[in-house]
């Protein structure tokens, strides 16, 4: 029973985790990112996972033009997408900053002020308009006690300082494919380029498609347009990242279920023990039945059925408990039970029951064989 609960609950947790991640990822499935490809011959839609810019920690000021998406390339992307979606540019760099006496490091994004309200939700404040307004990510705001009106000085003193004022806090977005804003500072494009330069040179171009089904076709069109002669850009979509994450969760779930399987092994030993005790306790009965003319296979069947009934009853109770415990585990560890009642999650209940019952039958086989092969005289003499 405990083994069945362990396996079913762990299995359901894994399934729910995968389904939830898939959900989150599919929310981003309509986003394509176009980044500069540093001259690899991969072509096509690129082999990498892409990911949010600014994560590498490279400062834009140190890079040459070759590492950017040029304005003409951005326009080519915009032409390729046409009316299928919105295309916007992303400036990004990693920079140090100070808030009062505290120093920190964060990703700084520069985005078009017209686009910001479409892609970022605020938990507090308003979207930046002027040159000094900035948005900060939820985690960054919490770590540095940033509130609306807080002042933030970007850059090092010897290279120049750009002081901005927090006008809004960005809602927590969690894992994200296009922009990773939870620990970032988001500036208006003009404010960003005014300080860092790089006007008309972008770190990334993001495409938000109206229809998720256009992702592959649009990705191909962009690649065909821009990588005609030489590989210049890499187009990434969320599906590659999804594959990788799903596979990782799958491996993790298998591992956790293997650990849960150990409890089933312990259960198997208990069943074996119970069945051996049952044979020992009923040794006299077995002797009587044999003396009355009960064939060995019938005694064997009797004990195998008994362990099967014991196993099935345990598995059934285990499945009922798993339902409750699994729901608790999923709601506590994943925080989202939307997928709990889906077939992909609930299938672990009958699966664990089957495994539990089969293990019980297998562990009851030897005691049953022993019972069937008891010497009737010895069995009758037993007290």
């Amino acid at each position: 029973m405990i083994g069945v609960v362990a396996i079913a609950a762990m299995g359901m947790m894994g399934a729910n985790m995968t389904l939830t991640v898939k959900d989150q990822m599919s929310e981003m499935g309509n986003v394509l990112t176009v980044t500069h490809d540093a001259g690899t011959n991969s072509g096509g839609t690129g082999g990498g996972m892409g990911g949010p810019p600014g994560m590498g920690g490279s400062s834009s000021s140190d890079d040459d033009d070759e590492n950017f998406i040029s304005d003409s390339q951005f326009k080519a992307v915009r032409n390729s997408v046409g009316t299928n979606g919105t295309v916007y540019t992303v400036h990004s760099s990693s920079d140090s900053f100070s808030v009062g006496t505290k120093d920190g490091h964060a990703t700084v994004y520069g985005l078009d002020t017209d686009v910001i309200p479409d892609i970022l939700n605020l938990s507090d404040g308003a979207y930046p308009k002027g040159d000094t307004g900035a948005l900060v990510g939820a985690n960054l705001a919490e770590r540095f006690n940033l509130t609306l009106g807080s002042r933030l000085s970007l850059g090092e003193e010897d290279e120049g300082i750009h002081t901005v004022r927090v006008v809004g806090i960005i809602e927590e977005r969690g894992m994200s494919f296009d922009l990773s804003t939870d620990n970032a500072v988001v500036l208006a494009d003009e404010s960003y380029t005014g300080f860092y330069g790089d006007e008309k040179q972008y770190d990334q171009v993001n495409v938000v498609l109206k229809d998720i089904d256009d992702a592959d076709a649009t990705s191909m069109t962009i690649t065909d347009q821009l990588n005609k002669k030489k590989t210049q850009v890499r187009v990434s979509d969320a599906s590659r990242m999804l594959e990788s994450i799903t596979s990782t969760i799958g491996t993790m779930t298998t591992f956790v279920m293997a650990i849960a399987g150990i409890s089933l092994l312990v259960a198997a030993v208990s069943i074996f023990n119970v069945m051996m005790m049952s044979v020992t306790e009923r040794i006299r009965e077995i002797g009587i039945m044999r003396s009355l003319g009960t064939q060995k296979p019938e005694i064997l069947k009797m004990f195998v059925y008994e362990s099967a009934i014991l196993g099935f009853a345990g598995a059934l109770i285990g499945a009922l408990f798993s339902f409750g415990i699994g729901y608790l585990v999923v709601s506590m560890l994943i925080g989202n039970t939307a997928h709990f009642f889906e077939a992909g999650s609930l299938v672990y209940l009958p699966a664990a029951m089957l495994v539990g019952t089969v293990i019980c039958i297998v562990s009851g086989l030897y005691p049953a064989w022993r019972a069937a092969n008891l010497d009737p005289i010895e069995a009758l003499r037993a007290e």
Partner: protein
Amino acid sequence: MSPAPIIELEEVTKIYPLASGDVVALDHVTLSIDEGEFVAIMGPSGSGKSTLLNQIGRLDVPSSGRLRIAGADIGRMTDHELTDLRLKTLGYIFQKFNLLPLLTAFENVEYPYLMKHRQNDTAGVISRLLGSFGIDPALAAHRPAELSGGQQQRVAIARALVNDPAILICDEPTGNLDTKTGTQIMETLTDLNNRGRTIVIVTHDPTVATYADRTITIRDGRASLRAAASSSSWPCAASGSTSCAPCSPHSAS
């Protein structure tokens, strides 16, 4: 025409190998029991009488020698055939009744019936049989623990008879009963014998042995034979012979 032997033992030996040395429970026993005979096996504790009964009842395997029951050579039978023999030809009555504790009296009798017939008793054979031993349907619905010793033994006799066996093997059937109930049980067995059933009974009690046509006495694993009713010694017993088949009063040969 003389009745044919239904049980024949020829030089049957049973040795229990122990660390302290082999124990010879039966030592080259040769005897023959005819169809319809009532035979008592007597002897002191540890003499080998229960071992002999277990050989006859084919619950145990001899170390050497031959055993024939109803003309069949037991040594050549498979386990399946032996079990079938116990189901159809032999009926057992034990000292401790050996009823299955979780089944009711009726179910205890029904169990071997179902094993043989593979179908429910729609003809009411079991109820009639139990009724003939004074176990009415209300009593038959009780479990063995709720019945008296005499009632349990009568249920056990009904169980032994339900498949109409040719031979009844009784191991101290009155050993756990008071004198009055024991007498009733012995009268029942005598009645069954009078109706042609072969009965082999192991007992300590000389009174019980008086119901038998003859008595086989076991001492130190060796058998001797005498007539119980008259208590007169048979020649072979006096001579100390271990081969008693020729001495049987029912064996005309």
